[in-house]
């Protein structure tokens, strides 16, 4: 059973917009991400946690159809790039490069970012008209979309890798490429 990719991507963009709005009034303590030495904003935390939930839920549904499952890093990365990507983005990931247990998933023109300008990293934004929260800033950046997808990938890999934590980082470049790095 399936629906069109565009309906799902527009719906998820709306979810991301809603979560960004919620983060403005949410009282979440800021967290120091030890691996980065960076402060993680409430916005990023909320996108990450909701993305995690959806990513783990859809992965659980996908695994129902797998007769057997072994959770080596290669198997996990292959499942993510093929099965997960097809279920969520309507296609397989463009490319995967491997170095030791670091898997670099690359999208040349990531579908969920096609509505955003590619001119510069992180500063451009999509404006939302007629938003329900009048008077608020309703800008959403490419980094917000990436944060949400990173959360989904964390949820997926957590389930696939026998509930061990996999480090997931995401970024998008000035020329429009999007990268997700899974470190086992």
């Amino acid at each position, binding site marked *: 059973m399936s*629906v069109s*990719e565009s309906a799902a991507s*527009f*719906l998820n963009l*709306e979810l991301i917009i809603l979560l960004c709005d919620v983060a403005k009034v949410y009282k979440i303590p800021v967290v120091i991400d030890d691996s980065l030495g960076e402060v993680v904003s409430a916005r990023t935390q909320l996108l990450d946690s909701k993305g995690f939930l959806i990513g783990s839920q859809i992965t659980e549904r996908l695994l129902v159809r797998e007769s057997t499952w072994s959770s080596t890093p290669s198997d996990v990365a292959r499942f993510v790039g093929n099965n997960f990507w097809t*279920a969520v983005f*309507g296609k397989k990931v463009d490319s995967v490069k491997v170095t030791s247990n670091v898997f670099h998933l690359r999208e040349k023109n990531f579908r969920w970012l096609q509505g955003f300008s590619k001119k510069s990293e992180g500063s451009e934004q999509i404006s939302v008209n007629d938003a329900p929260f009048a008077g608020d800033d309703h800008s959403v950046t490419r980094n917000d979309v990436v944060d949400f997808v990173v959360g989904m990938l964390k949820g997926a890999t957590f389930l696939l890798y026998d509930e061990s934590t996999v480090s997931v980082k995401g970024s998008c470049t000035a020329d429009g490429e999007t990268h997700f790095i899974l470190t086992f």
Partner: protein
Amino acid sequence: MNRNSATNTKRGAPDMAKLGETAFDQNDKVSAEFFALSYGALVRQLIDQLPQDEDVNSVNQQLEMIGQRIGARLVEEYSVRSGGPPCKTFTDCAESVTKIGLKMFLNVNATVSAVKDSADTFSIRFHDNPLNIFVELPPEKNMRERLWYSNVLCGVLKGALGLVGYQTDVHFMKDTLRGDPVNEITLRFIGKERETFVVDREGR
């Protein structure tokens, strides 16, 4: 089904259901389960942030607004890829949006019929709803009686038709989540905007 379809199709008129199937087949597709889970997260978030415990109608309103934005985006793709005929009458519009639009994007097989004694109101019915495949409405907050869980669909129809100049009132009448045997949406055409190069909403 084929016979009914043939009966309903005017001579030379396109088979709307066939156009919808073709448009859907040509789509890139994602898992309907992923779609339902994403939507569930959206609805849950709206419910969780209700300022008043009983203000469920604001969730319905927000779902419709979100749907309008989605519909305004989808209609652009519909115009380019659906192969649907131009909408010259309210009936044309209702048939296109139901048999092509809902099928093309959501894989929903819906029927549309004119409401008795009315030239501008249509009833859209469908059994399978991809939005609610994992949902049970809880008794708390009178959800079962007051939440139209899939109200985003009304917004999608309203937003899409609005962008091509038709003002409509769209609302749910029946919902399988409430125990009804079928999902039913009423689509009422309020009017058509005159085409102008500059639309001044405040001046209208």
